[in-house]
């Protein structure tokens, strides 16, 4: 949610519109080429503005006079624009992957300054979606997730398509990045709050909650994330599958055994010993509600007193449940 600085040309576009910008820049290129190049090479210029002026720069053979970062960004946008299917898309993706780190700054510039997209066509949005997906999936870059989150929420406020951006965001498989969504629960924009609630619907009590203020919901969500982080795994659900995908889930058996899981598979990071395997088998046979209860109790006890937890865990599972019920004052 940081403020991105803007160049003079961005201001011209935002104040007077895309057509005015193009006419203004076309005149400037003709009458004062060096000034025109100075303005387009401004370090604060947004990709969205530069993208609009690219045809003019090409027409006037000025593309080679752009700084290396912007030249690279235009090369990438050329390679990733338009219809990409079959072998062409495979080739383009392989090229991006093998280019590796040297294209990351250009891709990040594109994604972080893609907005405002207003007045742009679907092809432009598709290009931005592809750049974000390449950064996350092909180059495994998670450092740009804050910029990607900004883009998702900005686009959502306009009612534009966010499916592929959301998909890319979650494909990073980074539970830490959920903080970027939790922050939006206390946004002053109602559209941000609604989207954040929908995307975080795997956190119990968040989706559709109108009783609590944004800041108290955010506090609750932060706490929940801290509590469950070691046991969270990516489910692979997306907006293509359903309206409110559960992007993450908590592995209850892992919470019960207090063993962290792989975010990719939901499987324990460390091999379980024979005793743990037996406990797991007994746990899996319990009804869902009992599993939730025991998992919660076990994790709480583990953090409060690991020695007590060890003593408790060696008991038969029905005795564990009885003790848990007594200590927590509920029913197992």
């Amino acid at each position, binding site marked *: 949610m940081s403020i991105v600085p803007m160049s003079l040309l961005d201001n011209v576009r935002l104040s007077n519109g895309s057509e005015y910008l193009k006419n203004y820049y076309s005149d400037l290129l003709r009458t004062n080429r060096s000034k025109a190049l100075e303005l387009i090479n401004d370090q604060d210029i947004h990709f969205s503005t530069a993208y609009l002026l690219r045809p003019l720069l090409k027409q006037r053979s000025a593309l080679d006079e752009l700084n290396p970062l912007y030249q690279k960004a235009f090369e990438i946008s050329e390679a990733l624009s338009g219809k990409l299917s079959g072998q062409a898309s495979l080739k383009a*993706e392989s090229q991006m992957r093998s280019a590796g780190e040297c294209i990351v700054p250009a891709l990040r510039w594109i994604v972080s300054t893609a907005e405002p997209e207003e007045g742009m066509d679907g092809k432009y*949005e*598709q290009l931005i979606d592809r750049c974000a997906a390449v950064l996350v999936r092909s180059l495994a870059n998670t450092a740009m997730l804050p910029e990607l989150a900004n883009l998702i929420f900005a686009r959502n406020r306009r009612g*534009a398509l966010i*499916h*592929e951006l959301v998909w890319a965001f979650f494909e990073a498989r980074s539970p830490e990045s959920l903080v970027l969504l939790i922050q939006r629960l206390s946004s002053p924009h109602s559209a941000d709050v609604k989207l954040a609630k929908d995307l975080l619907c795997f956190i119990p009590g968040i989706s559709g909650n109108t009783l609590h203020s944004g800041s108290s919901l955010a506090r609750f969500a932060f706490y929940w994330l801290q509590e469950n982080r070691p046991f969270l795994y990516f489910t692979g659900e997306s907006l*293509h*599958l359903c309206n409110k995908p559960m992007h993450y889930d908590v592995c209850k058996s892992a919470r019960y055994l207090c063993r962290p899981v792989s975010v990719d598979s939901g499987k324990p990071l460390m091999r379980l010993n024979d005793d743990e395997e037996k406990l797991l088998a007994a746990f899996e046979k319990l009804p869902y509600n009992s599993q939730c209860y025991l998992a919660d109790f076990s994790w709480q006890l583990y953090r409060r007193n690991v020695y007590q937890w060890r003593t408790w865990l060696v008991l038969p599972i029905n005795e564990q449940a009885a003790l848990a019920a007594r200590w927590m004052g509920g029913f197992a």
Partner: protein
Amino acid sequence: MIELTSGEFNAQSFLDQYTSGSAEYEMLKKLNESTHTYKYPDLDELTFEIKMRRAIINASLDLYRARLSFRTFQDSKCNEDFWRRMSNGGFALKQGVKASDAINDIYRNTRQYGTECATAIVIVYYKAVLEVYGASLFDKAFTDIVLMNWQQMDELLSIATYRKLPDYIPGDCRYFRNPDVNPLTPEWQGENAIDMGNGKYYGHGIGISDANRIIAVLNQNRVADSTISAYLMDTATRPDFGSLYMYWKNS
């Protein structure tokens, strides 16, 4: 097994109403032979659900035969006489247009339409309800349709996705996920497909085929050298047959 609140359920005599090998027969057999108990208030509601599921299968078959083209949201198209194309690639029913006419137009002037797989499934659901309700009741029930993936669905349909179900029944919408999809073609990240019965599925853009072929098509759209296959997820998306029944019954 099937249980009726209104009284005893004679599974065999109910099954005998349907031809062995039909989708309806398969639905009932699955429900009845399940270890899970499916509770219905009465036989009418069960019959309605079977009818709706059959209509979903028919609407899928008709859409497949009409050759609706596959297009991404950025590239989607519709007949502007009936629908307004929205900036997110979805279609909103035009004011003054009857919902039944607009849905039927997709099946009549199919060449003027193109969209993604999830929207195709949403079209299938509306068409199925139209067939069961009839035009007059359908127009009364749906005055503000938006066809856009799973978003902005009418409350009456109450589409929901269920996970880890004991049974999957013909008429369910299943999802084939492609975890290693080429990120430049995210439209191949998965395929929503209607269970047509008999091990066949309808997936928009792929056609009617078995699960293995759908998986093979998705696998063709993975990143180079991938070893992670597409697979059928343990989920099913369904409209709320109970709500649809109540509206139909009380109208």
